[in-house]
């Protein structure tokens, strides 16, 4: 087990390094950083001074090494547009994104799983068909559009919920719902199919023959077994949540990592682009490593496979 965890951690560090190389040298090729800072009347000497000042006179691989060394010590450079240290900005932004993702996961599970159970129990009824249609729409509707329509209905039209920025618990409702829709559909579909499979099994039939009440059969015997694959989906869904976070943060002006990344791309703020991409990558890689280790803990086949 220890060996497995070690291998998995080394792998994820390697993945992160590859990502940093791709992004660093990719950004390198897009153009001269010094020109971004230059104005119309910057002389060639001044331009050269800016280059030296930023360390741009050194070859790219040296700067990559410097960047990595600084990054490990927590210095991710300065934001050109905000005139602030990137690390400082990240400390503000990352928790906001994680909170939004957690809220989204909570909403998705607390609506998706019960809906899935109901759909399986009421298999092939109108309710089941309705739930299936809901899942199809949830998988297909663009999140940015759902978010905007939520703002229109609950904010602009009925004025019942805040639609802008971060604040009290009521600020979470709309963004969390918008971010959750896609994975909610996933939870629902998975719970439904997993439940259907279990409900058809021998031990459930036996429980029924024993004369247990339908409620006991479904919630005690069937659900306990059906829920395992559903919970594993919780880990996989993190990619979906990160995807949603980028879009939903922009629509709701949520002060998170996704919006920071997008602003930096628009403003060509290289240090911030690099840092936000690496941190998102780090979040994702750490998350999937933890999930992998947990799986291996639960299921020995993965460990030795």
């Amino acid at each position, binding site marked *: 087990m220890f060996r497995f965890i070690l291998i998995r951690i080394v792998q994820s560090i390697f*993945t992160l390094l*590859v990502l940093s190389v*791709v*992004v660093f040298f*990719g*950004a390198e*090729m*897009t*153009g001269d950083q010094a020109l971004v800072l230059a104005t119309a009347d910057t002389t060639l000497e001044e331009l050269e001074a800016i280059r030296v000042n930023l360390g741009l006179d050194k070859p790219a691989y040296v700067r990559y090494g410097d960047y990595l060394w600084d990054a490990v010590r927590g210095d991710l450079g300065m934001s050109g547009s905000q005139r602030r240290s990137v690390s400082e900005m990240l400390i503000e932004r990352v928790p906001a994104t994680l909170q939004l993702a957690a809220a989204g996961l909570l909403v998705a599970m607390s609506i998706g799983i019960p809906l899935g159970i109901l759909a399986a129990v009421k298999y092939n009824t109108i309710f089941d068909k309705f739930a299936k249609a809901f899942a*199809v*729409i949830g*998988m*297909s*509707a*663009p*999140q*940015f*559009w759902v978010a*905007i*329509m939520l*703002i*229109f209905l609950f904010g*602009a039209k009925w004025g019942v919920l805040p639609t802008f920025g971060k604040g009290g618990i009521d600020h979470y409702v709309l963004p969390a719902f918008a971010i959750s829709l896609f994975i909610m559909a996933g939870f629902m579909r998975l719970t439904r199919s997993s439940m259907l499979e279990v409900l058809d099994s021998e031990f459930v039939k036996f429980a029924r023959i024993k004369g247990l009440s339908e409620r006991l059969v479904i919630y005690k015997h069937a659900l306990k077994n059906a829920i395992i694959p559903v919970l594993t989906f919780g880990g996989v869904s993190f*990619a*979906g949540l*990160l*995807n949603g976070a*980028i*879009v939903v943060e*922009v*629509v709701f002006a949520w002060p998170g990592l996704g919006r920071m*990344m*997008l602003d930096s*791309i*628009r403003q*060509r703020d290289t240090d911030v*682009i690099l840092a936000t*991409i690496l941190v*998102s*990558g780090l979040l*994702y890689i750490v998350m*999937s490593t933890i999930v992998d280790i947990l799986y291996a803990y639960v299921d020995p086949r993965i460990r030795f496979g």
Partner: protein
Amino acid sequence: MSVNEAENILKPPSTIQNVLGFGKKLKAAHIPWIPTFILVLLLFCAVFAPMLAPYDPKEADVLKGVQRIGPFESSENLLGVDILGRDLLSRLIHGARISAFISLVSLGFGAVVGTSLGIISGYIGGKTDAFIMRVSDGVMGFPTILLALIIVAIQGGAGIQNVIIAIMATVWARFARQIRGEVLGLKERDFVTLAVVAGVPAHRIMIRHVFPNVINTVLIIISLLVGQTILLEASLSFLGVGVPPGEPAWGIMVAEGRNNLIDLWWLSLIPGLAITIVVIAMNLFGDWMRDTLDPKLRRS
């Protein structure tokens, strides 16, 4: 075994035969009419956009914009006009063209790259295989919008070409993974073994003998991915890093409509509805293609 028979076994199934068989299988199955109709409508709009659209999608008409014509309020502009007086229906039709063009081109390139890598990976095996599969696993798990944003950031901003490359970078891995699995099975089949014995060079076996047998799967993967691709393009355009602003892409139209959400809400509602309907239709159509052509793929 006579020489003739050996030749027959050696003969790879022709591409044309394969495609014909594909059509036959489709005909026998129960076609989902509504998604098919929407798909045909989308393609029709995409191809004939300039002829179908009553107005130039970028032509502003300030007078009409001030009148705030809503949907079904005027016979001249069936779906109304936006804040600049541009005809919404015309923009919607041209938007279909952008969506269809970007998703087909990026999926096409993604399919070519992914299928080639998948065949190479499966057929050659060894370290090449391990490397390609490691990379494609990384790409497949990664959040798609984040990956596309990285590609856009590297390329330095919005642009149709950049979106196509970004989408391609996210989709090729699906092809590579699936095709590789299939090639592993094909590699052991008699017609490949005989080709090897007959001294056919590896690249020729891959192109003439293996490739025709995976075309079905490639088409299925394409049909399953069209919906997601349209969604990804719309999201990137909405975020302002996709199709350049001002173009009548659906994602951009939703973003523009957002500025006047309170009194002109339909400007966001209608293009978003178009995306949703098209993506639902594509997803249903893809599911159906997979189920009828290759039920083995169901769980993947």
